[in-house]
Structures are given as structure tokens and as C-alpha cells.
């Protein structure tokens, strides 16, 4: 790999990694507070995609509004999902909640199959996304730069929100010790709704970026993102927000460099190879790369 190729791949890795990081962060957010893995998280990406599809085909809104609409829809759907499906099972076991979210995912997929179509539908994106910038010998796609920047903005603003705001403080306290947080007046329902809202907004942001890359949406669009989010947060140590971000970048980098270095015949196996490497990593460190071993 030549140095300029390397730089290009590095930008690609940052771009894909930031999508995974945002995805993993949203998933970890809910896990940290409720100890729940939300399998229907991927469907939030799908919802963002269909909202974009609807807004571009039915209105003349500029792409920026279309994108914001997608993000908002995912945030709203996430809050509703918790209210309707998960709240009745608030004290259920990890396994019951996992199965419930699995069923919710299927329900939403089924709804899109019914209401729209089984087939993928193209989502128009600005032509700018296809262009590339020449910086000396290095050619970098505009979309990669946009993706990495939006990812960075999302991560930084969330960090600031969690650090500086009272709501963020309540969420951090609840993630550490839910009962004690309540004993200090942190309202359980509110903090859980907020966690789902943020989780949904993050899924929405990642979803918009994802759709901008794939330029189409189908009922099963959310599957790959949710798997990658799961894997990235497991690498980072489940529930560890910083770890989730690092895990996302790790996974993105791994995938991009496997794509770049694997021989052509093995290219379809890039994702599977990345997963195998992750499983091998977990064999050595079952608690994740950045997680801490639980202390009894």
C-alpha cells in the first residue's frame, strides 16, 4: 500500500469508524442504564431511512431537512418503542428483554414490508457526495469527510451534554447505580426515556450517514448496523461509553483495512474475517478490549 493509498484508507476508516462509534454509543447508552440489549436498535436506522425516502419523494425539502427529519423520526421512534414495548416489562430478565426487542425488530420490519415493499428503494442523495477532493496525491471522497465530521460533532456534543448538563449528570449517575440515583431524586422514567431518546437520535444520525453511503433502504436495512453496533460495544466492554466509541473505530478500521488488503477472491469475507478477529480478541479478553473485568 502506497503512502497516499494509506492516507485514503485512513480517512475511510475514520469515516466508517465514526458511523460504528455513533451506533455503538447509542446501544451502550441504553445498556448502561437499563442493562438491556435493544435488538430493535437497527430498525431505528431503517426508520430514519424510510423517513428520508418519504421526505424526498413527497416534499421538495432540501437534503439537510430530509436528514434532520430522519434523525428526529428515529429519536421519536426510540422513545415510543420503550414506552409501548419495554416499559410493561421493566423488571423482566435480560433474556426476556432481549427476546422482546428481537420481536419488536421483526414487527417493524414486517410493518415496512406491508406498508412499503420488500424490495429496496433508492434514496436520492446530493451529487456532492459522489465527488472527491484532490489533496496533492491523495484523493478523498467528500462523503467520507462529511461522515467523519458529523460523527465527530455528534460524539463531541454528546460528551459535552453528558458532562455539562444536569440531565447528563443524572444519566451518568443512573448508569453507575440506578437505585442510589433514584434515592437522590433522579426520576427513573424520565432518565430512561431520555436514554432512549439519545440512543434513537444517535441511531438516526448514523442512519442518515449509512443511507448516504448505501443510497437505498429496504425493510432489513437495520440488520448490518445493529450487528456492527453490538460487536463494537462488546469490543469496547458493554455499557462503557468510551469503550463503545473506541470499539466502533477499531471495527471500522479493521474492516476498511481488510477490504484494502484482502485478495479479490476473499473480499466478500471481509466482514466475516473482521468478526472472526473480534471473536478471537474476546477469547483472550472476554471482558472486551477496553472493558474492565467485573469485580465480585
Amino acid at each position: 500500500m502506497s503512502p497516499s493509498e494509506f492516507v485514503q484508507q485512513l480517512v475511510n476508516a475514520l469515516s466508517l469508524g465514526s458511523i460504528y462509534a455513533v451506533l455503538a454509543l447509542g446501544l451502550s447508552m441504553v445498556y448502561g442504564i437499563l442493562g438491556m440489549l435493544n435488538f430493535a436498535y437497527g430498525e431505528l436506522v431503517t426508520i430514519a431511512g424510510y423517513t428520508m425516502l418519504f421526505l424526498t419523494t413527497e416534499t421538495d425539502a432540501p437534503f439537510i431537512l430530509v436528514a434532520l427529519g430522519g434523525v428526529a423520526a428515529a429519536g421519536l421512534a426510540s422513545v415510543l418503542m420503550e414506552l409501548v414495548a419495554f416499559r410493561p416489562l421493566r423488571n423482566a430478565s435480560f433474556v426476556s428483554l432481549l427476546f422482546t426487542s428481537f420481536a419488536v425488530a421483526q414487527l417493524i420490519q414486517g410493518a415496512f414490508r406491508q406498508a412499503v415493499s420488500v424490495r429496496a428503494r433508492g434514496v436520492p442523495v446530493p451529487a456532492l457526495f459522489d465527488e472527491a477532493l484532490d489533496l496533492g496525491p491523495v484523493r478523498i471522497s467528500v462523503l467520507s469527510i462529511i461522515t467523519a465530521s458529523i460523527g465527530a460533532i455528534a460524539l463531541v456534543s454528546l460528551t459535552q451534554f453528558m458532562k455539562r448538563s444536569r440531565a447528563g449528570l443524572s444519566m451518568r449517575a443512573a448508569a453507575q447505580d440506578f437505585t442510589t440515583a433514584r434515592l437522590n431524586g433522579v426520576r427513573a422514567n424520565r432518565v430512561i426515556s431520555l436514554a432512549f431518546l439519545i440512543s434513537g437520535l444517535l441511531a438516526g444520525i448514523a442512519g442518515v450517514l449509512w443511507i448516504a453511503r448505501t443510497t437505498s433502504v429496504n425493510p432489513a436495512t437495520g440488520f448490518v448496523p445493529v450487528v456492527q453496533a453490538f460487536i463494537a460495544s462488546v469490543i469496547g466492554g458493554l455499557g462503557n461509553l468510551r469503550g463503545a466509541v473506541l470499539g466502533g473505530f477499531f471495527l471500522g478500521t479493521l474492516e476498511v483495512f481488510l477490504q484494502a488488503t484482502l485478495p479479490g477472491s476473499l473480499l466478500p469475507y471481509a466482514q466475516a474475517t473482521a468478526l472472526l478477529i473480534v471473536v478471537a480478541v474476546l477469547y483472550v479478553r472476554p471482558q472486551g478490549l477496553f472493558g474492565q473485568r467485573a469485580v465480585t
Partner: protein
Amino acid sequence: MSDVAGNGTAPERGDGAPLLSVDSLRVTYGAVTALRDVSLDVRAGEIVAALGPNGAGKTTLLRTIAGVLKPQAGAITFRGSPLSGSAPEAVVGRGIALVPEGRHIFPGLTVEENLLVGGTTRSERDEVRRDADGWLARFPILGERRSQLAGTLSGGEQQQLAIARALMGRPTMLLLDEPSLGLAPIVVDRIFALISELRDDGVTILLVEQNVHRALAVADRAVVLSVGEVVASGPAESLAEGDLERSYLGIGRKG
């Protein structure tokens, strides 16, 4: 910090209707009955100590009042209106704060952030910050460590932080669960001095404590629990030494 009890002036100690009234409380965990028919009153401004050996149900009593556990039967009344069945966050909102056994500070938050979490129920952000500064000044050791993660504090420092955090909500009443647990004697002195000061500030306290002599020295009244029942109660100075030792050392319980 004379305005710790934020809800107006504290009523004359020991007068009138009880501030907190627990009536025939019954709490079970699965097959275990942790409290059976426990009744007690706490009047405004007094310190009541709940004593008894391990497993007597003292912690269960505090956790039930605080809304963490739901009673099977019985009633809890606070300032004349019912409290039982309220969620923990609602109980704090009513002015009762629990300092849990084992302190339960948030280890991954800084000392200052721990205090700010304690002010969650209050709306005036600047006042909450001022109160936090006040506590950091009152406990210089915490003041020095305000930006340090609370998990790195020593046991005694954590206990001070837990109490200060509970007081950040300006409660009328404080539930203290084993505040001296695992602390060196000199640190215990400091904690008990603080408890006396809080009483002088007008905070009503229900104290669960294994260090009987310390507890009786600071309390106005005491109840003794054994295997989930009240077996003795009365003014602190009149509780017979014999009663206590018998219940602590496991002699002469009800069969």
C-alpha cells in the same frame, strides 16, 4: 449552612403530631419476612436510633420508608399524608433522604458531581451550586478533592460525601444507615459530631447504627428490633443495658 432544613423553621422538638409515623409495617422478600408489624414514630427535630443485631430488619425499615421496597401491609405517614407505595424519587421530593448502608457514592463521578446529583430535586441551579460549595467548605477534605473521582476516597471521606450528598436536597428528614460501618474510631467520632450538628441545624434523623453506645449517646429515643419485630423502645437514656445485650448477643429472643 444553618438552612439545611430548607422547609422553613424547624418545629419545636418533640411536640405535637409525629413528623414520620410507621404503622404495623410488614415487608417480605420471597419466603423471608423481614419486618412484621413494626410501628414507630419520629417527631420533628429528634434523633431516633433503630438498634438490633444483624438481620433484625433495620436496613429493610429504612429502605421501605425511602420507597426502595414496597410493604406488604401497614402504612407510612409523613407530615400527615401517606407515603407508602411512593417511588424513591417521590420520597426524596417529599423531603426524606436516605444515606444508604455501604455509602453508595457514585465512584465514577467526581466529588462535586456526587453533590450535584444530590441536588436533583431542586430547580434553582445556582443555589444548588452554592450549597455544593458550602459543603465542600464545611468538609475541607472533600473540598481538596472536589475534582477527584469519588471512588478514590477513603471510607470516612466517602461517608461524609454520602451524607453531604443527601443533604444537598435540603431534606426535612435524614435516614442514616450504619454511618460508622467499617470506619476507624477517630473517623466515627467525626461522623457522630456531624450528626449532632445536623440535629442542631434542625434535621430530623432516623439512625440505624450497630455501635449501640454511640447511637444512644446521640439519640433522643431508641427502638430495638429483633428478627423483624420491635422488642423494646423508649428514651435513649432509659433503655436498659441488659435488654440490649440480650438482643445483640442472641439471648432471650421470642421463640
